[in-house]
């Protein structure tokens, strides 16, 4: 079954952007990430294909400025998946290799012509300050 056109067109847009973009389905499974996102994730979409939510959510840890682990309901994408609204937050991510980086994440829901929630998009930014 093909994806809805709103998902397909979001992927096309993501492919044209220089910011890392992750696209998930309605349950958080990662269905596409663009080339800049490959650098964040440390993997190529061609190699991994789609990733289950429980798999890609463990690729990095999310911490606040004090090093406290953030709970899922504090993360923009998780909040978007839960209530279908956009969110934004700046925090620290630590990769499995231990590399730490401060990022800002903007997430938004994909709500199609029919008014149905179809998935979510997370865009990663390099913030000027935490």
């Amino acid at each position, binding site marked *: *079954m*093909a994806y809805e056109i709103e998902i397909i067109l979001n*992927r*096309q847009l993501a492919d044209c952007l220089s910011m890392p973009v992750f696209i998930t389905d309605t349950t958080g499974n990662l269905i596409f990430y663009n080339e800049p996102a490959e650098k964040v994730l440390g993997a190529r979409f061609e190699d991994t294909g789609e990733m289950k939510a429980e798999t890609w959510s463990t690729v990095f840890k999310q911490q606040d400025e004090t090093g406290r682990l953030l709970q899922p309901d504090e993360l923009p994408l998780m909040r978007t998946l839960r209530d279908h609204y956009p969110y934004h937050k700046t925090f620290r991510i630590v990769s499995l290799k231990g590399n730490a980086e401060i990022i800002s994440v903007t997430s938004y829901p994909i709500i199609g012509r*029919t*008014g149905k929630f179809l998935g979510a998009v997370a865009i990663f930014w390099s913030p000027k300050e935490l």
Partner: protein
Amino acid sequence: MKISIRGVRGSIPTTDPETAYYGGNTSCIVVSENDWILLLDGGSGMQRFNLLENTNIRRIDLLLTHLHLDHIQGIGFFNPLFDPSFDIHIWGPSSNTSSLHSRLSRYLSPPLFPVLIRDLPCKLTLHEIENSSFEIGPFNIESRFVIHPSPTVGYRITGEHSVFTYIPDHEPALGSLDFYNKKWISGIDLALSADLLLHDAQYSAQEYRRKVGWGHCSMDDAAKFASLADVKHLLLTHHDPSHTDKQLNELITDLKNRNNYLFNYELAAEGMKIELT
């Protein structure tokens, strides 16, 4: 299932003798089976629908892919709308900003047209569809939104023995980075293994490069789409109004010289009749 092609031109009708072979009327297709009639789109080709061939039929279903003018301009000249003995059903894509009635009324009202929808004497019923499945007589019909500016659907029509897919305005390449993964191709579910696919092919590959995002398809992409969908027969339609018969013949010859698709493919022409068995 019988398919009768009444209009194949994209965007605007042409009356030039140089387009007379393939035809100058905009989109309209007649589908019939067991005394049921579907009209697909109400372009200028709709005026050629001959009621004398079907004198016993009093219900007609008009399935609109979208409401661009070249797909509705024939509606006002469709005689059964002005006959109280007819039961007319118009099906069209929903919009989250205005109703189908409201959008059709923009055309069927002054100053663009002298008669209001509410004054039409036929029994008229409007149906708003989206990604829908519904039945009309012997036909099982699926509609799905496809990539084209403004709400636009394609149709997969399953009859008793055959499947006909109609996607006259479609730009699948706009959303498909990889034209090999079916999950990421707009409209592919409608066309899978269809006996006949009538698909947008407005541009040459060269023209398409200058018109990305206009909502239409190159002949090359239409053929790739049909190949991926594994259709049995492809009819290329929505011919660009600037393309003469001679140019269309050159384009299809060039396409065939560069490809070895196993399915039958050709240009749609007004007056074509195809029976799917």
